């Protein structure tokens, strides 16, 4: 049985007197200890999907469908059970640690706060454990670091602090929302490697939210690609990148510069990404798709668990070369 099962998830927020759909018909499963990447451009609904797992949807949002975590339906949990779920079972790593860590509290406060409040550890013990965790994420001199304030640490160090704070609670699932996007390019891979390694050691599952298909493929067992609030392709990481079935996935793979070869002109996907509520009645990607037929704009293709494209059987798409 899988750890997390999302089925038929839809999410809409009220805006200017009407409902704006951000996520629609999302099905996703994550097994215990498994890493799944949720890939898409900004506005594709990937962050909202992750937040829905924790019940952290914007105020007034309408959520339907089912999110089952370890046998319990998250969407119908009471406030208290939801808090217990967030406190012990699922941890979240946010994109921008500078904004997501309280600037007026010390690093030590941030790390020990949850251990004291959620695990009931005495402050001294929590501090000792925080120092050990900092060492594990590659920050030496932990005792001094605990006394420092967030503004005294670099973005990369601060993101390691955030990772340590999540590991501290030994959750079963980590939701990592673009954990390296806000960091310097030089520290991105380092932080990602630390996160992945420590998670594997502890057998924690991870849902990695990212716009970077290559990063997700390198880290995750399975990938799901989102476009306009829907999953358009979900497969095992290696086969998805080698032979994509959806034109959008192929476009994402080809529009990325490669170190190994010199390309004279980078391929781009024409047009701009749309959110779910802006999409036309047919396939949301059809207006930007090189392979679209007239029929694509009429009926929305159904996601069969692998891909949501009516032409996937007849097309041979280019993947990672």
């Amino acid at each position, binding site marked *: 049985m899988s750890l997390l099962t999302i089925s038929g998830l839809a999410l809409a927020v009220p805006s200017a007197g009407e409902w704006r759909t951000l996520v629609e018909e999302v099905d996703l499963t994550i097994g215990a200890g498994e890493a799944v990447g949720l890939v898409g451009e900004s506005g594709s609904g990937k962050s909202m999907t992750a937040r829905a797992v924790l019940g952290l949807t914007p105020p007034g949002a309408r959520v339907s469908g089912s999110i089952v975590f370890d046998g319990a339906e998250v969407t119908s949990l009471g406030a208290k059970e939801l808090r217990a779920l967030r406190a012990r079972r699922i941890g*979240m790593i*946010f994109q921008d640690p500078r904004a*997501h860590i*309280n*600037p*007026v*509290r010390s690093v030590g406060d941030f790390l020990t706060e949850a251990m004291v409040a959620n695990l009931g550890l005495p402050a001294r013990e929590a501090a000792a454990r925080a120092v050990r965790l900092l060492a594990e994420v590659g920050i030496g001199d932990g005792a001094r670091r605990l006394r420092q304030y967030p503004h005294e640490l670099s973005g990369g160090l601060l993101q390691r602090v955030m990772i340590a704070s999540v590991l501290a609670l030994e959750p079963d699932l980590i939701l990592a929302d673009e954990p390296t996007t806000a960091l310097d390019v030089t520290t991105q891979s380092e932080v990602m490697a630390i996160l992945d390694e420590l998670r594997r050691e502890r057998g924690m599952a991870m849902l990695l939210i990212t716009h970077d298909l290559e990063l997700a493929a390198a880290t995750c067992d399975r990938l799901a690609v989102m476009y306009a609030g829907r999953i358009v392709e979900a497969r095992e990481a290696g086969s998805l990148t080698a032979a994509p079935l959806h034109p959008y996935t192929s476009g994402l793979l080809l529009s990325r510069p490669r170190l190994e070869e010199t390309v004279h002109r980078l391929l781009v996907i024409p047009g701009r990404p749309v959110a779910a509520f802006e999409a036309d009645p047919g396939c949301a990607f059809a207006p930007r798709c090189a392979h679209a037929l007239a029929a694509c704009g009429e009926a929305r293709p159904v996601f069969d668990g692998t891909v949501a494209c009516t032409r996937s059987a007849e097309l041979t798409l280019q993947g990672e070369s």
Partner: protein
Amino acid sequence: MSFLLKRLAGLAVVLLVASFLVYGLLYLVPGGPMAFLLGNRSGTPEQVAAIRAQYRLDDPFLLRYLSWLGDALTGDFGSSLVYRQEVAALIGSRVATTVLLVGYATVLISAGGIAMGLLAGLRGGRLDTAIGVLSSLFLATPPFVVGVLLAIVFSVGLGWFPVFGPGEGLLDRLYHLTLPAITLSLASAAFLARITRASVREELNREHVETARARGFGERHIVRRHVLRNASIPVVTVTGLNIAGLIAGSVVVENIFALDGLGSLFVRAILQRDFAIVQAVVLVLVTAFVLINLLVDLCYSALDPRLSR
């Protein structure tokens, strides 16, 4: 430390300039200082001689200023022409009332303003609207109008509070100071409520609060440890600025309620052209104003780790 030294040096400069202006203004008066000091009084030759001696009118200006400043620094502001008393003693006997009034008003402002702001910011809804309307009303009504209306309703009309006088003994004094303190605090409390509400709202929407939610903390824990602590930074600043502003407001309020504080002494001295008192009171008020502003800055950097070091 260098921050504190820098601020203290700035404070000294401000006080020096203020003292020079206050002293020098006396000489800008049409007719010169003698005409001014005598005012409407007709001076006998002895009085004129006494004034010439007290203000050293025969010495050069800068020398006179420096000797006056030297005396002022040791607490000697000369003596009042009207009261025939040492100015320092006169001020000393009045300062307690003003300090008590400003202190009382500060308590009311901090308690009332912050409580209203928190209620409006955390609860929202109709309570928020009601507090918003009320604070706009208080902000637009000048303190002297508030004082007169309060006195008319609660003293003359209902007879709950005495209208005039400072009272005797601490409790009776506080009772007498209640209406004046409310008068002094309404506008500032309204302003503080607005600032508190705005900063609580802003903090609630911060990303780090989302992190706290994601970590499973209860709403009370989040408000206490993350929202209030962070929102307190602008609130402390505004509270401090308000207290500094109360020093000016007390001049007006003391005159409505006939309290024997610095403010009423000041206004009477202006009307009677008793310049030794005017100079001394201005220096005391400006010193207090500047000191409070300095204290606020110190609190500010203590609350926000990004500013210290």
